[in-house]
């Protein structure tokens, strides 16, 4: 009999660019302990552990095996998943299905990544067909640059708008004790004064690489209602992958491509009675690897109409105190341990629903939240959370 599933425990590490004081297993353990403490559970209460990580970065085969004890997986069911940037979300989704199916009644989802131990060059370039690198010959930055140029031309967005996204992320990060990059930026001018890397991209347009882990404990309805005062219900999930764009890794100058974000959000909204996303959803934690990507996501997730994404940020509508807060946590632009990042999105969205986000809690009452992830060649996952179902 299918169960309804809630998040009953949330834990994350304090994300940093370097964590020489721990190895990866110990780092993940910090998040696991935090989640168990939050849920007021013990390791023995967990029945399955689903882990998520892009292991080629650290060069580890079967990292979940090395870390079995630290992730409370000994004697437990479970497995590891990996789908690129969306790995963490895939972890949450499979952890959800394990509990929803009744195969187990509690699951622990752990996403982790320790970039200070990784060979990033080897890891990223090895994504491409080992013998064929579409776009690799021009470098990842030029792919993002290409995307920004296409968006600027199509929508009329300006560099200021990308800068506003970074500013919003920084404001959120400065209020979020777990976030990594706390730059203390004073204004858009400061960002625009920083040099370009490749026209029109600045280094401030990118996410960092972090060392961090995030853990969630999922439980079936029976258990959730018994042990948690504030269970956060996973109302629905959706995964949509896609073939690479024809004319670039991230940008689409042809205007012909279908975006997985568009397909995913349409289906998710339809299934859940969401007709006006900015009204029916209270906040979004989205996976934005670059500032321009966030503006585009506003449109692709239908938070606004096509070509209007830059207007949302210009009007301050996606700020913490805004009409539709997006990434009040500081988002991926401030913190990006890849394997953990999608789990952090879900964790942050859940904290908002619980009212436990501390200084970066949004002003509007959060009953419904959506957490997204981005991976592979523009793959999307969306997880819909509700305070009550």
């Amino acid at each position: 009999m299918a169960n309804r599933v809630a998040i009953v425990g949330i834990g994350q590490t304090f994300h940093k660019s370097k964590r020489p004081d721990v190895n990866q297993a110990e780092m993940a353990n910090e998040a696991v302990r935090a989640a168990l403490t939050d849920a007021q559970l013990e390791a023995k209460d967990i029945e399955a552990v689903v882990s998520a990580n892009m292991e080629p970065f650290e060069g580890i085969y079967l990292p979940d095996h090395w870390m079995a004890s630290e992730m409370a997986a000994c004697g437990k069911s479970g497995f590891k998943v990996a789908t690129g940037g969306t790995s963490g979300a895939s972890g949450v989704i499979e952890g959800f299905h394990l509990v929803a199916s009744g195969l187990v009644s509690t699951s622990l989802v752990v996403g982790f990544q320790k970039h200070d131990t990784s060979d990033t060059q080897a890891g990223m370039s090895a994504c491409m067909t080992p013998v064929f690198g579409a776009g690799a010959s021009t470098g990842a930055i030029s792919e993002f640059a290409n995307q920004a140029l296409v968006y600027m031309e199509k929508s009329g967005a300006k560099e200021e708008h990308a800068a506003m996204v970074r500013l919003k992320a920084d404001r959120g990060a400065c209020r979020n004790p777990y976030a990594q990059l706390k730059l203390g930026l004073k204004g858009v001018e400061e960002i625009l004064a920083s040099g370009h890397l490749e026209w029109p991209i600045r280094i401030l347009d990118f996410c960092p690489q972090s060392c961090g882990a995030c853990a969630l404990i999922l439980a079936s309805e029976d258990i959730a209602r018994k042990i948690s005062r504030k269970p956060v219900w996973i109302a629905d999930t959706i995964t949509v992958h896609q073939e690479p764009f024809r004319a670039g890794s991230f940008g689409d100058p042809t205007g012909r491509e279908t975006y997985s974000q568009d397909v995913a959000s349409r289906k998710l909204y339809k299934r859940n009675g969401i007709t006006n996303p900015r009204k029916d959803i209270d906040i979004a934690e989205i996976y934005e690897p670059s500032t321009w990507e966030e503006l585009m996501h506003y449109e692709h997730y239908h938070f606004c109409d096509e070509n209007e994404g830059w207007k949302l940020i210009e009007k301050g509508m996606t700020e913490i105190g805004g009409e539709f807060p997006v990434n009040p946590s500081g988002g991926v632009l401030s913190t990006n341990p890849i394997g953990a990042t999608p789990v952090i999105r879900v964790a942050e969205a859940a904290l908002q629903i619980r009212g436990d986000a501390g200084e970066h809690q949004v002003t509007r009452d959060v009953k419904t939240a959506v957490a997204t992830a981005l991976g592979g060649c523009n793959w999307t996952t969306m997880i819909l959370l509700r305070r009550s179902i």
Partner: protein
Amino acid sequence: MAERVGIVAVAQTKYHPNRADVNEGELVYEAIKQVLDETGLGYGDRGKGIDASIDCSQDMWDGRTISNLGVMSYVGAHLADEDKVCEDSINALYCAMARILSGHHDIVLVATHCKESQANKSIVENAAFDPIFLRLLGLDFLAAAAMQSTRYMHKYGITVEQCAKVAVKNRGNAKNNPFAQEPLDITIEDVLRSATLASPIRLLDSKPISDGACAMILARESQAKKLTKKPIWIMGASNCYETHYPGYRELADCDALVKAAKKAYSMAGITDPFKQINVAEISEEYSYQEMLWMEGLGLCQRGDAGKLIDTGVTKMGGQLPVNPCGGMLSGKPTVVAGMANVAEAVLQLRGEAGERQVPKAKVALAHGVTGICGQHQAVMILGHN
């Protein structure tokens, strides 16, 4: 009454030491094409076709980050649901099963591949050892297995002859399996005379390098009955981790397997495995493992698997044939082996196992193993009623 999960079609490629003629995607497509043709299914939303695909591959074996990029076109992932599990492929089936039992999916394609010929086995496996203490010892799974075998043989008096009997049985069984890579007519003496790889494991106690792929389609009961006349039901399934450091484990007792088997049997209503199971497909990377895993599966008491092999009850024609397909020893890639075992179990239960058919098989066991000395174990019980 909750709907069960049925397997409606299975396919394996013929296992081969070096499929240099195809890349990963083309290899897995050889299996996927067969299950698509057999069921006539396409990809689509719920109720209209395959509504999710679960891949299973290892980035470290494929030498490619996000290794499912190499197969996504072949599993119909464009604008569709896809995920990738990174353990032995029997766990991808477990994941797919959860997707259906959760009520969110109806028909799931599961596909796995591994081309061992493309990588250096020792270097890949060495990367599984904890990087702080164990990696620099230069161990791979063979060296670790040798330790486990030594411990197991010492604790329970298992002999090298008994290990050799496993190899002789499985290599001989492979002659009946059109998918097998390397059937051999060998004797116990042949095994004992073959070169020692890592004492006490000899060349013929271990499996050859292999390339291959496997695909199957799972469906919820109501759909399964429409898609095939012979759906095979997953009666029970579970998996389990053990601790990582070999020094902390009792290598002669596979606790993870005991736990996984217990849960799977409980789900399937199996109380006396040796009597109630008619055929077992077990992942034996090395000959001693077939015996060790049989004990973990509760097919006999701890330490008695050697005697079981001696009695011949696990041979073809015996009370409980183990590895009628020839097992991993006859050539089957890591990662793929677990799902391949389920595929064999399905063929047995459908009565489609040809010359390796176990007569009147009603309940089958399939087993998958991942990691150092079987740190991660998975069990699936299948039946056709």
